[in-house]
């Protein structure tokens, strides 16, 4: 039989063990509570961050990414653009001899597919025949049509339009507006999908041979360019222009809007109609 001293020690050991078990249990409970809190906080923060990331950023354009051309495809596009524009003076959005007797104002929207068709199918011939010869200069102006579709709110559309058009105007500060605009039209995506995001616009700028990227970035916020964009748009509204491309030919004999048909809807004129208009206003 255990002595009194042994019994005391056994009781003490049992008490210590009990206390340790209680402490351990309390620690486990606290750890589980913290774990629950950790998981709850993490889930909430991640969900909020994802929601903000995918829907926030103010009016900054968002949307799908259109992959820009690369490799031999890009090489071909650059070849076509360079051949078309080689040797023609540029200043801002103006292409051609500043003293040319005839001016063609080209109201366009970089997302507009009809502008794309005109720019790729008809414009190169016109440039070779009328602009390169110094007879006509072309001034690009902006009018929101395809970009201002029903898919998004006015604020989102306008932010997208300003962002993409100013990207091209900014290249114009280095005498490369037309290279930028033509590269845009060559690689145009589906209208209304907000594809011309920052990566797309920067990617295009990188494709423009000799463009100083840092200057291009800085110039995108120039107040003068924003003012030019606002002036273009307000003129288009005031003149009640109905779509893009709208081509306005001006010379010493007057001014006229050159109409055309395309797939039986609003469109653009062919080379012969353009040549006729040039003759009429010259």
């Amino acid at each position, binding site marked *: 039989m255990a002595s009194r001293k042994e019994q005391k020690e056994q009781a003490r050991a049992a008490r210590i063990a009990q206390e*340790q078990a209680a402490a351990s249990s309390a*620690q486990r409970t*606290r*750890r589980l509570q*913290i*774990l629950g*809190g*950790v*998981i709850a*906080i*993490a*889930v909430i*923060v*991640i969900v909020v*961050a*994802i929601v*903000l*990331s*995918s829907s*926030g*950023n*103010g009016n*900054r*354009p*968002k949307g*799908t*990414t259109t*992959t*820009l*051309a*690369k490799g031999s495809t*890009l090489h071909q596009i650059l070849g076509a653009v360079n051949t078309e524009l080689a040797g023609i003076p540029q200043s801002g959005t103006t292409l051609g001899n500043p003293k040319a007797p005839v001016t063609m104002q080209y109201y366009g929207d970089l997302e507009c597919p009809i502008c794309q068709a005109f720019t790729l199918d008809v414009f190169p011939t016109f440039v070779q025949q009328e602009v390169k010869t110094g007879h006509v200069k072309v001034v690009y102006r902006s009018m929101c049509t395809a970009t201002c579709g029903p898919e998004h709110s006015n604020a989102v559309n306008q932010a997208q339009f300003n962002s993409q058009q100013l990207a091209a105007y900014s290249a114009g500060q280095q005498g490369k507006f037309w290279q930028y605009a033509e590269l845009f039209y060559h690689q145009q995506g589906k209208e209304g999908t907000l594809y011309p*995001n*920052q*990566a797309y616009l*920067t*990617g295009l700028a*990188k*494709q423009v041979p000799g463009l100083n*990227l*840092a200057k291009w*970035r800085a110039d995108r916020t120039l107040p003068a360019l924003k003012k030019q964009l606002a002036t273009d748009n307000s003129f288009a509204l005031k003149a009640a222009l109905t779509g893009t491309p709208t081509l306005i030919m001006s010379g010493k004999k007057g001014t006229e809007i050159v109409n055309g048909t395309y797939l039986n809807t609003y469109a653009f004129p062919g080379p012969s109609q353009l040549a006729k208009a040039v003759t009429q206003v010259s």
Partner: protein
Amino acid sequence: MAPTERPPVARGDVARDRLMVAILVVTTLGFLDAAYLTYVHYAGFGALACFGAHSGHSSCETVQSSQWAEIVGIPVALLGLLGYIGLFVSYWVAARLDGELGRGMSFCIALIGFGFSLYLTYRELFSIHAICEWCVGSAVCLTILTVLTGARFLRGETTAGAAPV
């Protein structure tokens, strides 16, 4: 003078020390990665060393200039940097103030970083179609940290009086 005798070190303590060293190393790597991306964001992309190419330009730049590179105007790189600083603070809390709470904080921050970097990697692959090595580097660090800080939190303090950082 008699040589001082080192107290015997328990195997659990050694394992905990090694775990903490690994955590500190990975956190430091992630911190440097996020600091670099934050610097690049504010200094301009000329400083961005990236091996990937995307449409004729750096794939890192594609990712960094995408809409997902910012949350309500705050660069994600800066948020990552703040996260790593938060991790260092949590290690300090665990060592000096409250071990259990500090380890919980570490696990929480790492878990948030892991979850969000998982989302960003998804965006890189399926929305931006470009991969930024620096972002992937940070995502890997956060994945490792989630495992290590999780193990550290669940393991807790097993020795009475021991106070692992």
